[in-house]
């Protein structure tokens, strides 16, 4: 009797509960999307309309002027290209260096391995803003300020990526490697032909995380490159906002254009993106 009562109590308002959950989630969605919608709506207005009081919600006549005039205000295409190029180099570099080191740390026995691995891990504890000034001075000494090399060089190496790759290599059974060794494969072949294809989900995750970081990074690209043609999109947007302070449609158009590629890539690789982020919490 009592059991029955309890059961009915827990199942008392399933529909009511679901409605509340939906209401909360829907409100959250609105709060998440509203700024993007406002970004788009503003970008389709004229400068005069954007600052009219009271503000119009929908543009009176939809005009893409803010987009078409953007290249006159700053070298937008060059900045786009700079961002694509440096992001790809950073992703490729991290995948290569981190997976190679991760393989060695997970699969090869050599003297000092544990010490060197802990040394790598210690880097994880250093906040990124702590390093930025000496890294800047270093790049300056190398004569690389205002070059694209400055943007990607310090970011090719990642302790976190190495740790992540090592975890993936550790999860592959030893038998596979033994079989390959009996067949006469060396580490080079085992790494490139057998192991890398097996940890593809790990590579995708690291690639996705690194891309997100490289594309959106502000402080580093901004301080090393002050020439407009060497800027990435983040620094370019900061410049745009500083120069055209009240041209809100252009600022919004620039912001939207700069974010669209990652949103599209995210929409396509949605599952990998989410898995990649979820992996950062691995224990």
């Amino acid at each position, binding site marked *: 009797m009592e059991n029955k009562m309890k059961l009915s109590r827990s199942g008392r308002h399933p529909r009511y509960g679901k409605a509340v959950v939906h209401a909360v989630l829907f409100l959250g969605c609105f709060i998440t999307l509203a700024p*993007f919608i406002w970004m788009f709506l503003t970008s389709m207005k004229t400068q005069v309309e954007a600052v009219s009081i009271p*503000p119009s919600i929908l543009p009176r006549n939809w005009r893409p002027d803010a987009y078409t005039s953007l290249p006159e205000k700053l070298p937008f295409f060059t900045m786009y290209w700079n961002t694509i190029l440096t992001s790809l180099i950073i992703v490729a570099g991290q995948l290569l260096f981190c997976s190679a080191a991760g393989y060695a740390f997970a699969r090869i026995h050599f003297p000092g391995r544990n010490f060197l691995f802990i040394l*790598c891990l210690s880097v994880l504890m250093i906040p990124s803003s702590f*390093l930025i000034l000496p890294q800047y001075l*270093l790049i300056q000494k190398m004569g690389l300020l205002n070059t694209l090399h400055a943007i990607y060089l310090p970011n090719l*190496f990642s*302790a976190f990526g190495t740790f992540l790759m090592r975890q993936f290599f550790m999860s592959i059974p030893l038998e596979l490697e033994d079989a390959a060794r009996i067949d006469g494969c060396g580490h080079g072949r085992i790494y490139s032909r057998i192991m890398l294809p097996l940890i593809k989900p790990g590579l995708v995750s690291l690639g996705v995380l690194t891309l997100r970081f490289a594309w*959106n990074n502000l402080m580093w690209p901004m301080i090393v490159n002050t020439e407009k043609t060497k800027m990435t999109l983040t620094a370019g947007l900061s410049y745009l906002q500083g120069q055209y302070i009240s041209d809100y449609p252009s600022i919004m158009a620039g912001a939207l254009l700069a974010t669209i590629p990652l949103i599209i890539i995210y929409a396509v690789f949605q599952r990998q993106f989410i898995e990649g982020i979820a992996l950062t919490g691995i224990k």
Partner: protein
Amino acid sequence: MTVKTRITRQKRVDWAWGYGMILPLLAGLGLFYFYPVYKVFRDSLYTVGAFNRSSWAGLANYTKMFQDSVMWRSLGNTLMYAVIIIPLTVVLALILAALLNTRIRGRDVYRVIYFIPTVTMSVAIAMVWRWIFNGDFGILNHIVRIFGGTPQYWLSDEHTVLLCISIVSVWMGVGYNMIILLAGIQGISSNYYEAAELEGAGKIRQFLKITIPLVTPTLFFVVITTVISTLQIFDVIYMMIPTKSIAMSYAQSVVMYFYRNAFEYSAKGYASAIAVLLFAIIMLLTLFQMRIQKKWVHYD
């Protein structure tokens, strides 16, 4: 004999591969991470002026820091950001993760949408929010007027500026942490919930008594990383508050002040001392959290 030499030869080949494969990484980390760590500590003891000429200053940068009221205010602001942003982000992320873990229609759509701010650059996010908060033409003031309130200069008022930046940061950070927590929640065995269901525990009770205790290892990770990133808050402040604004001193974080010293005032020695202080604070807080984790984190 021959067998032994073959084995040692094989070992040497292995070692060569091992060192060879970690060499590029170690060289890169050495140049761009380990050397800079040394350099920051060194520079914090020097006065680094124009053209990077440096002269020995002893602890002068540190004593200056303790007497610098702007520094203290920046530190206070940063702690204020931490107090507002960290609990809000973590709690909202946890609630959303729990809601998205229920069997509910459109779950995947919600998941995709909540994640969008995480892939968007913080620069663009800050730009649109700055426009929303704009005192003269912003949409927020328009909404405030509709409801009969008084419009505010949100971003130049000393009472609201820090709160506005905090809201934007929370808005930006929830999706990321939600995904990590969702992964953690999905790792909880459904047996616990089935047993609770039989016992007649409601959903809220299940959340409090099962989900929260069992997700604490993931929660611990989320708290640690959120603390570290919040203490280094910079992008949003830089993009939303003009440096010359009077509100800057009420919004400025330690990293913002560090940035201005390093790259605007060209006081690189002093900036290094600020970096050392921040490093020490982050280190101590992280160690402290590691220490007290036994009290609230449940490992199986």
